[in-house]
């Protein structure tokens, strides 16, 4: 037996390829959407992995430091380091902001890291160029996705920083590239007001009789000095000594330090389950819409193609073709359309969408397999209307009046 579907497709291949390419672009968008979601999850995991931490110690009852703002005193790390099972504890600050470089500004997550050596929690674990921060001020290491180059001068608030190193895959959970600067500078950047505001604040303090008391000399200066520093960080990253259970150590910090502590797994749950949950729902919605549109297109095309063949189908039935053969004819065409679409879609997603999309697009082979299955199922379901129309055709029509 020859393949009727195949012959029909070869006969009208232009129509098929054309529709298949259109469908393929839709499928390409669908695959890319899935890739964007995977990319977001992967970004979140990279953020956690690259921070090098086992535990995140944050302000009590917050989901910080990524999902909510959290601030804790910058000397908390000292007391944490003394706790059993803790190998190291390092302050860290995160601030998402526009960083200026010459004429342009780039949205980045500015990360303040404690002085130390490579391997300290919060530091970029590897560099692709240059060196790590060695001085306590005004040096920066940037993710290459930011577009900054070695030697560039960055402006963060009022201060200027020189890019001394470049790293990669260091992004925030929303995909913004990270820029690492020394902790002290970062604390200041979070807090720093402009000169006029500082001037105003000092004036207000000086006018306040509670602070400006002639009988207590030096009080005003002390108050102003305390107003000009920022003793807070967003979190303390804790590394655990090998042989200790992170959940046990976390529990003892919660209990004795009265702070909220998250383990790696809990942090991942927060990032994936809460921070990017809204985006994930939007993407899921898009996937549903795109699937519906694709099915509508396939159904419409296959239905039209079948209506164009009603007479041939009547003849086929008259000369004794089984319904099974006619169903196979239509269904195979539908699936063939899906196949063309899938191949075009996969190519579009891999070669066109992923490289140019302004977000990390991670195309997982498993997603492609699932996508392929979905396409086949959609095509089979979409051909049902056409199949019903074909089965209703009366073989007597072929004989005519």
């Amino acid at each position, binding site marked *: 037996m*020859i393949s009727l579907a195949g012959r029909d497709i070869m006969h009208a291949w232009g129509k098929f390829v054309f529709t298949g390419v259109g469908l393929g672009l839709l499928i390409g968008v669908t695959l890319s959407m899935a890739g964007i979601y995977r990319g977001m999850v992967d970004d979140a995991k990279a953020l956690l992995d690259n921070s090098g931490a086992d535990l995140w110690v944050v302000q009590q009852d917050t989901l910080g430091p990524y999902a909510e703002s959290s601030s804790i005193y910058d000397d908390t790390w000292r007391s944490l380091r003394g706790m059993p099972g803790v190998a190291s504890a390092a302050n860290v600050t995160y601030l998402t902001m526009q960083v200026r470089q010459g004429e342009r500004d780039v949205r980045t997550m500015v990360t303040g890291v404690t002085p130390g050596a490579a391997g300290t929690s919060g530091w970029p674990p590897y560099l692709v160029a240059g060196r790590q921060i060695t001085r306590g001020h005004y040096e920066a290491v940037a993710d290459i996705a930011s577009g900054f180059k070695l030697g560039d001068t960055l402006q963060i608030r009022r201060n200027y920083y020189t890019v001394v190193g470049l790293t990669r895959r260091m992004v925030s959970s929303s995909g913004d590239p990270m820029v690492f600067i020394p902790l002290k500078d970062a604390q200041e950047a979070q807090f720093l007001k402009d000169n006029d505001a500082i001037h105003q604040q000092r004036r207000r303090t000086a006018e306040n009789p509670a602070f400006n008391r002639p009988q207590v000399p030096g009080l005003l200066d002390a108050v102003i000095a305390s107003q000009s520093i920022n003793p807070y960080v967003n979190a303390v990253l804790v590394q655990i000594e090998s042989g200790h259970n992170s959940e046990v150590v976390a529990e003892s910090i919660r209990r004795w330090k009265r702070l909220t502590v998250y383990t790696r797994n809990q942090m991942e749950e927060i990032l994936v389950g809460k921070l990017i949950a809204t985006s994930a729902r939007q993407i899921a919605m898009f996937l549903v819409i795109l699937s519906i549109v694709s099915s509508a297109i396939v159904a419409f095309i296959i239905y039209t193609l079948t209506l164009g063949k009603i007479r041939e189908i009547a003849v086929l039935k008259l000369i*004794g073709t*089984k319904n099974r053969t006619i169903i196979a004819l239509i269904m195979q065409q539908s699936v063939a359309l899906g196949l063309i679409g899938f191949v075009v879609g996969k190519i579009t997603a891999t070669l066109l969408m992923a490289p140019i999309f302004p977000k990390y697009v991670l195309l997982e082979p498993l997603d492609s397999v699932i996508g392929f299955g979905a396409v086949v199922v959609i095509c089979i379901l979409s051909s049902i209307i056409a199949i019903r129309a074909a089965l209703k055709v009366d*073989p007597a029509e072929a004989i005519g009046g």
Partner: protein
Amino acid sequence: MGYKGIHIESLKKRYGSGDTAVEALKNVDMQVAPGEVVGLIGPSGSGKSTLLKSLGAVIEPTAGRMILGDEVIYDDGWKVKDLRALRRDKIGFVFQAPYLIPFLDVTDNVALLPMLAGVSNSEARKRAVKLLKALDVEHRAKAMPSQLSGGEQQRVAIARGLINRPPVILADEPTAPLDSERALAVIRILNDMARQYETAIIIVTHDEKIIPTFKRIYHIRDGVTYEEVGEGRNFT
């Protein structure tokens, strides 16, 4: 049973019911022996197509009896379960319009029927080419139907009707689109086939050119058939 060819006894067909009922076939009696070609002639609305459709098992008669070859196919109800297989194996159809499958080439249009019946592709094609040769369209065997002339298409359609060597061929106005020379050629082919394969053939026609070629003619009027001896003229 003793019958061969086509045997129809008091066949009736009523369309619809009640006030709008149409008695399309009131009393049809017809015998066509194997190897015989008979004409079926009648005015418009007399029931010719209804008769062909009943015999072709695409509509169900109301009452009567039909025998094809040695098989009773209808006796106040269908006596065969699989009407499609019956059509595929026992009946060849030739229509006024050739109705070829546009996406199959000439050979496969003809070979499709044996393929549907489970014959291997190469064997089916071999048979098709042989038949196309007999019908003088072998040189177009690889062409698509849209590339053929009307007469060539009609001959391919006839080949398709004949390929399974059905005991019965039903032809509805097979020569309508053809000039008289080609029309006579088609009739000659059908006669040759009838003789060669012992096929019983009914040709519905209005065509004055071919009516004189029938040895026997059935007239149908208001759903009733009358038999007439034809001229049986030679058509070379």
